[in-house]
């Protein structure tokens, strides 16, 4: 895909996101945001995202694919663990997970 194609794709993606925002304005006040239809919508979004994220950890593409799955899973577990240990600090948890991954990668590159 050339650069113009990429920009067109981006415009479609922006529109495909804005559809939900605009529709939200249109129907707000007329529909219950806690209703059944939104439960389905939320389940679909969560399943899709969890699928994408777990795939990025278990079966990544590109250069991440050359790192051991053990490193990726361990780093993620450490990140989540630190998050819960330190008052649900998202920044600290994320940083710790990435730091463990970085150290493991450096150690492996050196050995």
């Amino acid at each position, binding site marked *: 895909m050339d650069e113009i194609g990429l920009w067109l794709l981006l415009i479609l993606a922006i529109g495909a996101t804005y559809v939900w925002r605009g529709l939200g304005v249109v129907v707000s006040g007329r529909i219950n945001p806690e209703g059944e239809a939104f*439960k389905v919508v*939320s389940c679909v979004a969560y399943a899709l995202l969890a699928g994408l994220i777990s795939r990025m950890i278990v079966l990544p593409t590109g250069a991440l694919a050359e790192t051991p799955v053990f490193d990726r899973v361990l780093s993620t577990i450490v990140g989540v663990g630190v998050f819960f240990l330190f008052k649900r600090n998202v920044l600290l948890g994320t940083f710790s997970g990435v730091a463990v991954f970085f150290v493991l990668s450096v150690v492996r590159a050196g050995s």
Partner: protein
Amino acid sequence: MHSKTYRTPGAASAGGVRDAFKVSAWVIFASMMGFGSLAWVSGLTLGVSMVSSGAIWGLPGQIAFAELYATGAPVLAIVLAVSLANVRFLPMIVAMMPLFGEGVKNRAWHYVLAQLASVNTWAAAMRVCPHLPHELRAPYYVGFSIVCLLSGLAGTATGFVLAVELPPVVTLSLVFLNPVYFTIVFADVRHRSGVIALLIGAVGGPLFYQVSTDWGLLATGGIGGALAYLVDRILRRRHG
């Protein structure tokens, strides 16, 4: 809670700016930095990655965009996946807009306020705005959102440039920031239907990906999400 009262719209905006810098701006900067690096390894340009942060303004959709673009998925699969990854904006906006209904009479502005919403700005609006007079709610929210948006753009550019300039091991770690960050966000989800959908999706994602790299993600969302909803419904009938 929020005991502060603002006297003028300007003071409310300034309050929003200050509140954004407490936590949200930093979390957004870090997470968008991960996206900037992912954008680079996925073959996006700096311009495209910045505009996607500023205008899609929903990280899950942006990550789906970069990942599926990198694997060469068809246009329809990419656009649908981005859309579904960001579908949460619909219920979020529906819940948020009544806050601004009386303070912002011109309805055209509601469509602008909707574009500024992200998980962080939405949560701030829902938490703070009910305690503010109607005419100060939008100024507070806009002040908060502008800081978040700028910090997202700065983070994207930083991540992209670092990925270009620094050794591959750093780039790879920054790319890995994306799944770590979202796993942490998911680990904090408490409501039953969400937890079920996350677990089914986490198992289904890699499986469906092996069936089809192009359409596996959409299948995970559609089939996994429907299954999660049904399981939750059955549990609700049994246990309430």
